């Protein structure tokens, strides 16, 4: 029992050291500057089609589900309102984060893990390079910047798809949906979505980079680290989502 508890604190401590290394690496932009753009391309631009497809289907399903859950007498503009709130506040950032955990986080862990087991990271240290500044910081910055960007685009695609689905597949009119979209809107709702996406991006990059950076035991270790990274990052995203909602939801009311 004591071993388990001490092991837990040890793991937390190791991640704390890793975070310290990241902050230290942030002071060396010359090392990570160029690599950051490449990672932004990998994490953001290349993930855009997947995020767009997921957002489009989520938007369509949200609109249809919302319409057919309404009981008689409820004004149909509610479909626009609920679709907007569901997509912008929850589904857009959360699903983009989870999808990117699978696509980007797994790749991050596999890349860094392979570099670790093939001793490329050791080579960087030998060459007096800070491996964290060169390998982890660009990924972290890229994820923190690009996940909100992807979330904004996913939110837009989701809402637009919900709009077209609602007016084409249900009896909701364009005017009613637009009225609902604008009902009880507060600009902080967009900010809330961006805050969540930023936190999720940081979580994906941090946990997946750490698992890859600390991978060992050859190819099997890389595979295990990758699976573990995806699980930890996914759970972390869900926990952070709940925490964000608890802390910021009271400020969302229009």
């Amino acid at each position: 029992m004591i071993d388990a508890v001490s092991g837990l604190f040890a793991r937390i401590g190791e991640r704390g050291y890793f975070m310290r290394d990241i902050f230290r690496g942030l002071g060396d932009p010359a090392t990570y500057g160029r690599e950051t753009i490449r990672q932004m391309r990998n994490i953001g631009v290349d993930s855009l089609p997947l995020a767009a497809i997921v957002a489009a289907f989520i938007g369509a399903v949200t609109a249809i589900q919302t319409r057919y859950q309404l009981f008689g007498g409820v004004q149909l503009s509610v479909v626009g309102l609920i679709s907007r709130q569901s997509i912008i506040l929850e589904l857009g950032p959360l699903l983009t984060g989870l999808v990117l955990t699978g696509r980007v986080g797994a790749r991050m862990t596999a890349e860094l893990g392979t570099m670790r087991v093939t001793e490329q990271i050791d080579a960087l240290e030998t060459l007096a390079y800070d491996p964290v500044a060169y390998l982890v910081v660009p990924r972290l910055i890229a994820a923190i910047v690009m996940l909100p960007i992807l979330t904004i685009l996913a939110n837009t695609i989701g809402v637009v798809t919900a709009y077209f689905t609602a007016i084409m597949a249900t009896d909701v009119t364009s005017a009613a949906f637009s009225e609902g979209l604008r009902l009880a809107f507060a600009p902080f709702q967009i900010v809330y979505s961006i805050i969540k996406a930023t936190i999720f991006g940081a979580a994906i990059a941090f946990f997946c980079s750490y698992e890859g950076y600390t991978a060992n035991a050859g190819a099997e270790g890389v595979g295990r680290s990758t699976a573990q990274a995806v699980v930890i990052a996914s759970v972390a995203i869900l926990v952070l989502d709940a925490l964000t909602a608890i802390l910021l939801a009271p400020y969302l009311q229009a």
Partner: protein
Amino acid sequence: MKKRDDVLVGLVIAVAVIVAILGSLWLARGGLSKGYPLYAKFPWSAGLKQGQPVLLAGVNVGYVDDVELRPNGTVLTTFRVGKQFHVPQGTTATVVANGIFGDMAIALIPKTPNAQSIPPGDTVPVGPSGPGIAQLTAKADSVATSVNAITTALQKELVTSGGVADLRKTLASTNQLTLNMNRLVSQFSVIAAEQNRQLSLTQASLRRATSGVDSAKVDSTVKNFREASANMAALSADLRQTSLKLDSIVAKVSDGSGTIGKALNDPGAYNDIRGLIQHMDSLMVDIKKNPKRYINIKVF
């Protein structure tokens, strides 16, 4: 390759930022146009916030730009109205609930149609506010009290006093009545069928009787009837003429013209006749007393 990465990343970030800004502006204001400012001083803003809609006669024409609590306790609200919209003179501003999700809006209600509009930068008078949540709650409370009273009365009448049992009995009686009615209807059906059969037989008999009638005899009978009718008409005419003549005679008698009329209407003649009758009576008395004075019969 590096250059291409920069362009792609920059493009995606720029698009996302533009979409976020334009989307927020559209959701908050309905577009990029700022419109012209108008002001209203509300004693109670009911949670009005920046970005909430401004409705003119129920149509969305702008948005709330600023809500400021003044030191004198009023809420100075700045709202912007689209340049294509004009707020008529005499319009009043009221804070109203927009939908059922707590969103508020400024309702601009024109008093009467007016071609003159409130100029930009002017202050719109505040109109009477709609019922608040407290008033609605109080109303709902009174409604709930009434419903409770009705429910209590119903419970007393239906449950305590055995009304439900009575209703059940009534329903049972109604069921029995329905059964009886059904039975009666079936009996009526049998009777109707029998009557129908009898009518069919009667019709058949009539048809047979009709076929047995000689049409020539019927024609001559009808002809005789027609002649008799003509005779009756002539007789009636004669009777009418006779009646007219009798009427003229009666009229003459009534007028006292003619012999009979004079005789009937002359009081002198009447008196003479009465005197004559009296003489005749006294004569008859005298004859009875002294018949020999008048009757002298000699046989030999």
